């Protein structure tokens, strides 16, 4: 008898053992990261396209915007598509949202890779620099009145600078980059915990990235960028503490400790984030209280049956101590205490002007006095028809989502879902503010909070679409359509948020914040830092004032003195008695004159500040003669010039 059958059996067994061993090894491995490595490479190529596009924009070369848009699409589109798929593992989804968030943050870094052009960032730079120089965090800030009262970002940045030797710019960039990654992860985890789905969490974060502030405003070295991450972590800790039915006492105590620390750090970092988060917790707590009262045993129709609290699907209710009430009371207390004892004046000065401007604009729009702002248009710039279409495309789907979100919330009947729906329903109001002249800033600041609610419901509703696994091809097409729509919305949101001249760097422009920062302005700031007394008061246009107020260590002066706008000193054709009064009474030490202001209208609509005479309504730039008058005025000493920029000392005014 031959051994062949026995040999075949042995080979079979060996193959089965090998197969089992391989399967055991695979099972012992961690979850797969799927397409994350490939999509990370694609996103990096997107960044490369944006860098090349920005360089072309600096030289006004052809193809700049094409490269830029292609780069954005490459970063966002493929990742959004993969997050929509049902096959990605949880670990892969987490990696993808972090990669997306960090890549979109780097888009902002590529705009200004060697310094901080925009207004808020230079104000934060000044605050941090003063902290490093003096060792004190609450020094006054002439660029942004509200900054001294909220030292969380500056203190952390100063610690990084002191301990690592990095410059303020690099330390701030690293910190905000880490905060961005943390924000994406925190949002993912909070949506996952509430919805119960990792797929919903990934989609939710991708929808959150569609808020107009996400690309530039929330990536800048400013208080809100850090506070968003801290606020999201506080929200996550609250949800993680509140939602579970059972939590051992030690872990519960740990969450209480974390919530206390996070509440304080959010409070000392940014006013709006702490106020809005406190308001959200209060709404959630009230809804939870209402829900528990309605379903208490005393109110039950059949008192023999135990009451079923809303939203927990009949499971035993959690102890009343765990819930949104404690974080609501705590955050309200910390914000109130901080306002009363530390930052009240700073907050009123900063937020007061923002909100009063917005309210004033709304009232004037409603009752007459001013027309609506032309959407998607700056003072001298226009968007193309295609760009406007994209901008509308970024808004319509989110508005259409709202009734479905409300219906979904009413079905679940959970206080937290109600609270998130209430947040989402604020979206149309924030849109309306964009129709007003001064409401855009309020709308922009509100969007990153409102989008948490929108993102949550978009995620839940999308994951509840008919299961793609039954009709694979249709599922793929559906995911492709959704990813394409989301990408269009990302581009449209960016068009809404940024004027054509502020989307990419480029040649010098008048009154265009980042586009108005050039070598001469930086040289003047460097001169001031070395040769002029620190904290001298200066009158200057906004970009030069911000540079001199930060890198130059001087104090730009704005507003009015005795009811007279200080800006008139720059605008009038003759240096007259009233100008002398303004300079004397407001103790202005230097006047900074940039001859380029007479070249063109300011891109943002104003030269010095939004409520200067003629702001947003000029049809001609400043007369060159108005800027030239300083050269002929004997009471003013022209102590510095580098061509277009001259600095005049006012020490002679009033002495003759």
């Amino acid at each position, binding site marked *: 008898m031959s051994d062949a059958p026995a040999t075949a059996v042995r080979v079979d067994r060996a193959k089965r053992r090998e197969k089992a061993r391989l399967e055991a090894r695979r099972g012992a*491995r*961690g979850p797969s*990261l799927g397409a*994350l*490595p*490939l999509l*990370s490479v694609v*996103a*990096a190529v997107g*960044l490369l396209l944006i*860098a090349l596009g*920005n*360089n072309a924009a600096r030289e006004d070369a052809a193809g700049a915007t094409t490269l830029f848009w292609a780069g954005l699409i490459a970063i966002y589109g493929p990742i959004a598509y993969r997050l929509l798929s049902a096959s990605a*593992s949880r670990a*892969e989804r987490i*990696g993808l949202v972090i990669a997306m968030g960090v890549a979109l943050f*780097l888009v902002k*870094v*590529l*705009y200004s*890779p*060697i310094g901080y052009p925009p207004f808020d960032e230079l104000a934060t730079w000044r605050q941090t620099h003063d902290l490093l120089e003096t*060792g004190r*965090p609450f020094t006054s800030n002439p660029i942004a009145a509200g900054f001294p009262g909220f*030292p969380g970002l500056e*203190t*952390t940045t100063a610690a*990084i600078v*002191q*301990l*690592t*030797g990095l410059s303020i710019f690099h330390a701030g960039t690293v910190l905000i980059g*880490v905060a961005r990654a*943390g924000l994406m992860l*925190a949002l993912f985890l909070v949506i996952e915990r509430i919805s119960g789905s990792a797929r919903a969490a990934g989609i939710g974060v991708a929808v959150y990235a569609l808020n107009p502030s996400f690309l530039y405003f929330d990536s800048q070295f400013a208080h809100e960028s850090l506070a968003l991450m801290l606020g999201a*972590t506080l929200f996550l*800790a609250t949800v*993680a503490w509140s939602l579970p039915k059972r939590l051992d006492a030690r*872990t519960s105590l*740990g969450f209480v400790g*974390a919530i206390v*620390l996070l509440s304080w*750090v959010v409070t*000392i970092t940014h006013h709006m984030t702490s106020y809005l988060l406190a308001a959200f917790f209060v709404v959630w707590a009230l809804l939870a209280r209402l829900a528990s009262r309605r379903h208490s045993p005393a109110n039950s129709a059949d008192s023999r049956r135990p009451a079923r609290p809303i939203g927990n699907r009949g499971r035993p209710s959690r102890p009343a101590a765990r819930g949104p009430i404690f974080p609501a009371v705590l955050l309200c207390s910390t914000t109130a205490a901080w306002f009363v004892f530390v930052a009240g004046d700073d907050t009123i000065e900063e937020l007061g002007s923002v909100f009063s401007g917005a309210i004033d604009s709304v009232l004037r729009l409603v009752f007459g006095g001013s027309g609506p702002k032309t959407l998607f248009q700056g003072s001298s710039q226009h968007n193309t028809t295609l760009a406007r279409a994209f901008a509308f495309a970024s808004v319509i789907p989110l508005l259409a989502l709202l009734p479905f979100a409300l219906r979904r919330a009413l079905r679940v009947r959970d206080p937290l879902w109600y609270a998130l729906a209430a947040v989402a329903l604020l979206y149309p109001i924030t849109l309306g503010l964009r129709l007003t002249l001064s409401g855009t800033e309020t709308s922009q600041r509100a969007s990153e909070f409102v989008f948490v609610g929108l993102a949550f419901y978009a995620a839940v509703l999308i994951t509840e679409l008919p299961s793609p696994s039954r009709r694979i091809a249709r599922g793929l097409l559906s995911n492709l359509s959704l990813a394409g729509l989301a990408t269009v919305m990302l581009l449209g949101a960016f068009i809404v948020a940024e004027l054509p001249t502020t989307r990419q*760097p480029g040649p010098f422009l008048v009154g265009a914040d980042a586009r108005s920062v*050039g070598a001469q302005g930086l*040289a*003047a700031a460097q001169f001031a830092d070395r*040769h002029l*007394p620190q904290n001298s008061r200066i009158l200057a246009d906004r970009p030069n004032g911000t540079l001199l107020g930060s890198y130059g260590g001087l104090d730009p002066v704005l507003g009015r003195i005795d009811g007279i706008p200080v800006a008139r000193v720059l605008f009038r054709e003759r240096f007259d008695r009233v100008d002398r009064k303004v300079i004397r009474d407001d103790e202005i030490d230097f006047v900074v004159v940039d001859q380029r202001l007479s070249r063109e209208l300011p891109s943002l609509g104003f030269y010095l500040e939004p409520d200067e005479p003629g702001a947003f309504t000029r049809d001609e730039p400043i007369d060159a003669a108005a800027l030239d008058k300083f050269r002929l005025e*004997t009471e003013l*000493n*022209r*102590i*510095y*010039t*580098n061509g277009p920029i001259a600095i005049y*000392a006012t*020490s*002679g005014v009033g002495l003759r």
Partner: protein
Amino acid sequence: MSWLAAAVLLPLVLVLPGYALAAALFPPGTIDRDLRIVLVVALSICATALSGLVLQLFVDLSRGVFAASLATLTIGAALVARRERARRPGRSVSRGRLPHLPPAGLLAMVAAIAISAVAIAIATAGANRQLNASHFSALWLVPQGPPGFPPNGPPVIVGVSNREGRETGYRLSLRRGASTLRVWRFRLAAGDEWDATLAASELRGAGPLVARLDRGGTAHRRVALELDPRLEGVADE
């Protein structure tokens, strides 16, 4: 300090304090790894910002103060965490498996980081190129002495900055009234600055001080300074 040193020291601020705090607040196995990662970063920022806020009431915030406070916090929290772990010896540590990254995937991630770094380098070069494309010279005449704020009396600093992008020759003349006080001729390399301080005794005469910078034989920049008239006569003493 080099980027490498910064990379090594950065976790001292952004990771270690939060890691110790999270370990003290949440013993092993009480929360999942993803939540712990978020808390590590957020609590590190808490530790830095809140300790700085408290300490500035008593001392100026300096490198030593930051280092001492963060080290104290980290060690203290680590000791609490260790004590908690000792009190719960039977608690199993939930260690979910780390995601699996095959060699090709690892290579792709490294490539992604490298491409991103190249993108940043390209953008940086472009930004510097744009700044360096502006060619100009700057001239200044700044009083340094009393009276008042800002000062408006001697001594006076006269200075020139070369941002022409190449070595440039200058002629600088300083006049007061009809008199030429000083004339300098010099060459500056690209990016260099030159200045001179003039005492009161060197500024005799009446009328405004006028500095004129000639470049390539033609008048290029002009600044003028009228010293405080209350000092007239003081310069002659």
